[in-house]
């Protein structure tokens, strides 16, 4: 999207990470419905919450199908709903869809809608869902949910009754609800002429909007998931992190999104702010292109697996605010292979692998940029670590505005990051022969087959087995090396209650202002 922020003042961190990142709810047994409320007792109704986000300037949009920035997603989820949202473990949770039932061949899905109404009083009907999806996938659309939703054969999908839709898919897709939860797959009323004054079914009703400045919304007392505690929600824009913190300290806002670990540490003990570290939000890694020298040699990729000191990277690059990765994407998400032995630095092994690959003392270009926080620092630290094993990684600083497009085509080794998404989305977007952003050029028919098998079975154990097999391949000779997962840091005034500290950025319970109250 737009200006997708980007000067140093408008850091690219504002960008949402990746297409199909979702939104979520951790419905842990026992906390069903109510998000983690650390303290503060009984929720109290009333008041206005002002939340400061980094923004996209004049080019910000309200169109929920065009969301790209965190702030756009926060606004969209205040006003709209999707059929499903990602929970804190990235499994899809029913939202406007009350339930879903696949046919035996996983190619036809029957979705029952919840009894919900739009802000104008109209019920949410199957026609609204079909029209929303048709708008997202229309020809020449560049809406983010397009690729995920194009699995639907819309021409052959139909309304069964007032609250039931039957989706016909182009292929068997066992995790179809992931597509319903995909970024930007919001439901708008059919025949919406324009979205300047949006009408949704979400917890807040539209009030006013000025791109790059502010947004106001008021409580929807008829929200199907229970009315919000707040009377009013205001989302304001400050691209400068220090200014967001100052605004919070000066009581100009009650919630500040996206803080640096340094700010968090400075203010954590002061008692003036509450710091929330949302875990498993931001994956940091390397992408090696395996279709070309030198990384077409598995030994060289394995040498990198063994020379990286992940703990040191967490300490230095993430300032300790994160978790150790084990080279695979999606730590602790559904289907994650958590039983594989944790790798650590083993320089002897790395040296012998380098020797096998004939790469002792070799020099390899290592692309990085300031496109996202930590990319450059990680590249410099890893290149220091590699030198100890006798490998020269020559760090090259690229243009931050075009970095992601540049590394998708060129280079051999790049500093990489990703936001939260289900394993299924990570694989389908990045690791299949047909993937559009296959940054490691991992194209293996046997791997593709495992993915399609996982999507063609209704047997949960069988699907988990395929996921394990895919991850074993990647663990042993894949092109990604995910060394750590940083927390997403949010701060609030001490009076703010009901912020869920377990929800990764961009999942259902992240920025979920309908569950927040002011004590």
């Amino acid at each position: 999207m737009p200006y997708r922020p980007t000067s140093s003042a408008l850091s690219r961190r504002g960008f949402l990470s990746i297409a199909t990142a979702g939104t979520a709810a951790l419905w842990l047994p026992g906390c069903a419905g109510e998000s983690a409320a650390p303290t503060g007792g009984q929720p109290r109704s009333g008041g206005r919450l002002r939340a400061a986000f980094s923004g996209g300037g004049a080019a910000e949009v309200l169109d929920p199908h065009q969301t790209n920035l965190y702030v756009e997603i926060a606004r969209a989820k205040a006003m709209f709903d999707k059929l499903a949202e990602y929970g804190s473990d990235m499994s899809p949770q029913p939202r406007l869809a009350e339930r879903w039932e696949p046919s035996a061949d996983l190619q036809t899905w029957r979705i029952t809608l919840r009894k919900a109404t739009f802000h104008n009083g109209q019920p949410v009907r199957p026609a609204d869902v079909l029209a929303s999806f048709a708008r997202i996938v229309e020809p020449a659309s560049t809406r983010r949910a397009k690729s995920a939703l194009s699995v639907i054969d819309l021409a052959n999908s139909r309304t069964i009754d007032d609250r039931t839709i039957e989706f016909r898919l182009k292929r068997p897709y066992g995790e179809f609800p992931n597509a319903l939860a995909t970024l930007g797959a919001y439901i708008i009323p059919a025949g919406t002429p324009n979205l300047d004054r949006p009408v949704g079914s979400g917890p807040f009703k539209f009030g006013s909007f000025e791109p790059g400045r502010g947004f106001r919304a008021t409580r929807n007392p008829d929200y199907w998931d229970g009315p919000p505690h707040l009377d009013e929600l205001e989302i304001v824009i400050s691209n400068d992190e220090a200014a967001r913190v100052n605004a919070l300290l000066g009581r100009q806002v009650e919630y500040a999104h996206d803080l640096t670990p340094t700010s968090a540490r400075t203010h954590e003990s002061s008692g003036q702010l509450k710091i929330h570290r949302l875990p498993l939000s931001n994956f940091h890694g390397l992408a090696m292109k395996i279709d070309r020298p030198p990384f077409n040699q598995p030994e060289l990729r394995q040498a990198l697996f063994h020379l990286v000191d992940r703990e040191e990277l967490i300490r230095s690059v993430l300032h300790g605010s994160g978790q150790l990765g084990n080279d695979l994407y999606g730590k602790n998400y559904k289907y994650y292979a958590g039983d594989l032995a944790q790798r650590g630095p083993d320089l002897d092994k790395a040296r012998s692998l380098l020797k096998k690959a004939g790469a002792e003392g070799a020099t390899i270009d290592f692309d990085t940029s300031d496109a996202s926080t930590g990319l450059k620092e990680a590249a410099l630290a890893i290149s220091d670590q590699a030198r100890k094993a006798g490998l020269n990684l020559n760090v090259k600083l690229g243009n931050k505005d075009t970095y992601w497009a540049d590394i998708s085509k060129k280079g051999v080794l790049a500093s990489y990051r990703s936001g939260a998404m289900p394993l299924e989305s990570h694989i389908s977007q990045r690791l299949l022969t047909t993937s559009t952003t296959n940054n490691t050029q991992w194209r293996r028919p046997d791997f593709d087959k495992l993915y399609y098998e996982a999507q063609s079975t209704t047997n949960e154990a069988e699907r988990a087995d395929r996921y394990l097999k895919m991850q074993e391949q990647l663990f042993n000779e894949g092109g990604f090396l995910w060394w750590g997962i940083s927390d997403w840091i949010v701060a609030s005034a001490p009076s703010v209650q009901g912020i869920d500290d377990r929800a990764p950025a961009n999942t259902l319970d992240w920025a979920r202002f309908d569950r927040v109250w002011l004590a």
Partner: protein
Amino acid sequence: MTIPRYLAHRALLGVVQVLVVMAGMFFLTEALPGDAAVTIAGDNPDPAMIADLRERLGLNESSWHRLGDWLVAALHGDFGQSLLAPRSVVDIVASAAEPTLLLAGLTLVLLIPLSVGLGVLAAHREGSRLDRLISGTTLGLYSAPEFAMGILIVTVFAVKLGWFPPTAVGTSLTDNPAVLVLPVFVLLLRPICSLSRLVRAGMIDAQQSDYVRHVLRLGLSPARVRFTHSLPNAVAPAAQQLARTVDWLVGGVIVIEAIFVVPGLGTTLAAAVAARDLPVIQGLAVVFATTTVLVNLVADIAARVLAPTAEVGR
């Protein structure tokens, strides 16, 4: 050269200057790697989507073609649409100009009397302890970059003491004038220093000049000589410096905009460049170049009027 002829000459030159700046901005932006389609795709650079975007945004046309189209439309008063937002360039530039002009205007209203007053005072007491204090302080402040001063001042006066709001987030500058205090204060610091030092030096030069000695011998009161004879001559060089200051302020002082969360022209330009949003960049280039041409013209005329003997302009 008579004043009307001079004006016509300068106006013509100004139009050429604006066109050159615009073309310069256009080709410099084109020289940056990537285009709007690539920046819109962000970290999900699906080649098919980038191709679609390029087609839709008309980025497949040649640079010359696009610059030409833009020029023809601009001459008809149509500055086009942003590539990224469904908004017109005029709308985007106008809404960003409002806070910038307000900050710049307020800063100037305070700047001119303060800096002239300080300069005259220091020159009047040349060599005194007061002069040394003013000169020392202004030199010190001039050396501090505004982002450092901004952060320091917010920390002390807003966060620690709570006297003023730390940022302008979520409010408009006109609805809540208290938010203007700190940014205007920071914006004033450096220009006050440079201008008052120029005025001081000009006053001292003028006071020691032959004509001032002459009018003093004629029996005019020293105060009258200082304000009606020395001051205009001293202010003439400061007018040029003031023009540069206006230019700086209207360009949107981006660090101040960031620290105090003022969505002005500087922020808009930075965002537009990062997004390769050429129509918006072009619109801003016109505003910036026109401002520069106009304020320099006004400064040159002012200098001519104030000190007809001085060699200014061309």
